[in-house]
């Protein structure tokens, strides 16, 4: 059993999603726990003996930090009306047994209108927060940071980039629910809305937030929803065509063995091949899902060459450097319908169609160009012209 599978079983147990796993556990969990910021939760839930000593400093630091964060949060929320608390700060107070179990060092707030967000920004700047510039088209204003308190605030107008649309945001905002933080009355997304937001993050967040904790929270909170709330999640995701959320919900349900809130997704290339690469880890638990999704995508008739799609995306975003340049740090995993290339330096995973996989193989094992199928040759030429491959053919 892999460390990931063991850890997932343990997380299922401590969140009441599954039975206590048998046997000695935890021997090689530390890298995963640290990478996915799960140490405060595990440290406060009677950790396995093999881990207890290693987690003890984290347990103590988490208490120090949680007290300060709760204090900072309460003070900020007193000054920022007309908003809805998102993600960590809300989850720490609505899902976890105590705030100490969930670390967070920023506060994400959703506003119904830009003017309210601008007013909040002015108040935060007056309180010592330093504002960064807005990014055009981004779903939140430029983030604000208090370097002394080591705390940041993001003022959201949407939940992700590209956005889910005004109608969807308005529907989520309308479902806001009361939340009490250290004696301060505020509002948060309701649990169903929170699940959707978490799933959007898990499905295609370009930021490096901890995916395993993200998926755990989706499964944990999702399992607590009332039937009508769970039904609303599926309906909302379908009505607003939130493919990214569907993928996040499906990954969480698969990994933590809970009832899926949406039908099995057929993700887009962009949705499936994201930087959120846990799905592409070598863990056997996810292998079936991975191959299934990949086959749907690559093997189906008329599927766009994902290599070409990536090429286009790379050129649009002007960051082609990490894409399929043949160098060390690239790992290839064959699939029935193509191949995966995992760039261990950038964390990106590229899904290659059969043609593209052959092109890739050529770069590893030179063959005569004329012996290749025409489609493969075409891709190779395109890549070479654009400087993305330094081929030997």
């Amino acid at each position, binding site marked *: 059993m892999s460390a990931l599978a063991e850890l997932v079983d343990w997380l299922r147990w401590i969140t009441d999603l599954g039975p206590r796993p048998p046997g000695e556990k935890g021997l090689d969990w530390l890298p995963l726990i640290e990478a996915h910021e799960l140490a405060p939760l595990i440290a406060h839930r009677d950790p396995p003996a093999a881990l207890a000593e290693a987690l003890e400093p984290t347990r103590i630091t988490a208490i120090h930090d949680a*007290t*300060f964060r709760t204090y900072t949060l309460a003070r900020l929320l007193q000054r920022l009306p007309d908003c809805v608390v998102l993600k960590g700060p809300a989850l720490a107070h609505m899902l976890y047994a105590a705030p100490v179990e969930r670390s967070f060092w920023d506060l994400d707030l959703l506003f119904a209108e830009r003017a309210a967000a601008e007013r909040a920004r002015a108040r935060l700047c007056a309180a010592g927060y330093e504002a960064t510039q807005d990014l055009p088209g981004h779903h939140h204003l430029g983030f604000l940071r208090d370097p002394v308190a080591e705390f940041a605030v993001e003022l959201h107008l949407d939940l992700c980039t590209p956005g889910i649309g005004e109608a969807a945001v308005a529907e989520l905002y309308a479902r806001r629910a009361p939340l009490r933080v250290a004696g301060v009355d505020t509002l948060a997304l309701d649990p169903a809305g929170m699940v959707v937001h978490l799933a959007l993050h898990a499905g295609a967040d370009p930021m490096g937030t901890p995916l395993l904790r993200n998926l755990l929270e989706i499964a944990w909170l999702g399992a607590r929803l009332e039937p009508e709330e769970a039904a609303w999640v599926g309906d909302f995701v379908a009505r607003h065509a939130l493919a990214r959320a569907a993928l996040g919900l499906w990954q969480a349900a698969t990994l933590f063995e809970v009832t899926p809130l949406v039908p099995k997704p057929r993700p887009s290339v962009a949705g499936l091949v994201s930087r959120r690469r846990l799905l592409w880890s070598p863990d056997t638990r996810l292998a079936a899902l991975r191959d299934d999704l990949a086959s749907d995508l690559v093997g189906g008739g008329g599927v766009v060459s994902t290599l070409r799609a990536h090429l286009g995306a790379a050129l649009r975003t002007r960051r082609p450097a990490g894409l399929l340049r043949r160098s060390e740090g690239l790992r290839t995993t064959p699939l029935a319908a193509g191949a995966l290339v995992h760039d261990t330096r950038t964390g990106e995973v590229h899904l290659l169609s059969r043609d593209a996989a052959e092109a890739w193989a050529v770069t590893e094992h030179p063959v005569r160009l004329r012996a290749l199928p025409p489609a493969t040759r075409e891709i190779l030429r395109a890549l070479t012209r654009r400087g993305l491959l330094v081929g030997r053919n």
Partner: protein
Amino acid sequence: MGPWSSPCSPSRPRRLAPGRRSPADGAAAGAGSLLKSWRLGPELRVGAGARLADPINAVFADFLCEDEPSLELSIFDGHLAMNGVRVAPCADLALAPLLEGTLLGFAARTRRDCTPLHAGAIEFEGRGLLLLGDKGSGKSTLAASLGRYFTDELAFVEHGTTTLRAFPKAATIKAGSFALFEESRTWSDAVRGPVRYHQPPERADPEAALALSALVFPHYAPGAGRCVELDPVEAAAALIAQLFGGLARHVGAAQTVRALSGLPACALHFGSTEQAAELLRRWR
């Protein structure tokens, strides 16, 4: 008093008798449940109920004041709670170290007029000494033993200057130095092991100013003692390593490092507090 001054004026000794308040800690979070408050930073006054009186007195007695706190800590259902909301589980024996770490973090993260350093400070025979070193280097033991005590763990230096503001919480004494101080309650610290708190009789009031004149990097090592001069570059590197939040935390932090690294600096290898005192007398 500096910009951090409070309307209340702490005096010494003003220890609070535990259990003076009848309701259980955390039973109510409103203003009526407050016992006393401890001034620890700007906009930061900690009110605490009876079960927290002993541990807070042990560490922060000099910060006691009377005015309304903005934050109330209590014990509720086996948890440390803030404003009546459970934050983290805790055991009685670990309360003092837990509060010490928590409230030091508060103080460092709410103070904007000073650069916070992980350091001790004393006035020793007319000289202001900043004691810098990692855990176990002996800085708390020296701070509590030599001269007039200003702090042992958290040194607030006014941005861009060599002026320190006293933060005289009780010195944290680790097991290896227990015998050097009068017996007191032993607390359990999950990271540092058993600790005791010692309030040096000769200590500065909170916020008292100290003009620093030298940097001392203690290294406890039994045997022959010695003082080794450090150049300003070594001193600056060591200062940066002991900054809370690093250089990016405040533009004043770099200016403080620049000002402090211009002071004479030495690595003090000592095997006893008497030896350390003698070496410091002879140095410069």
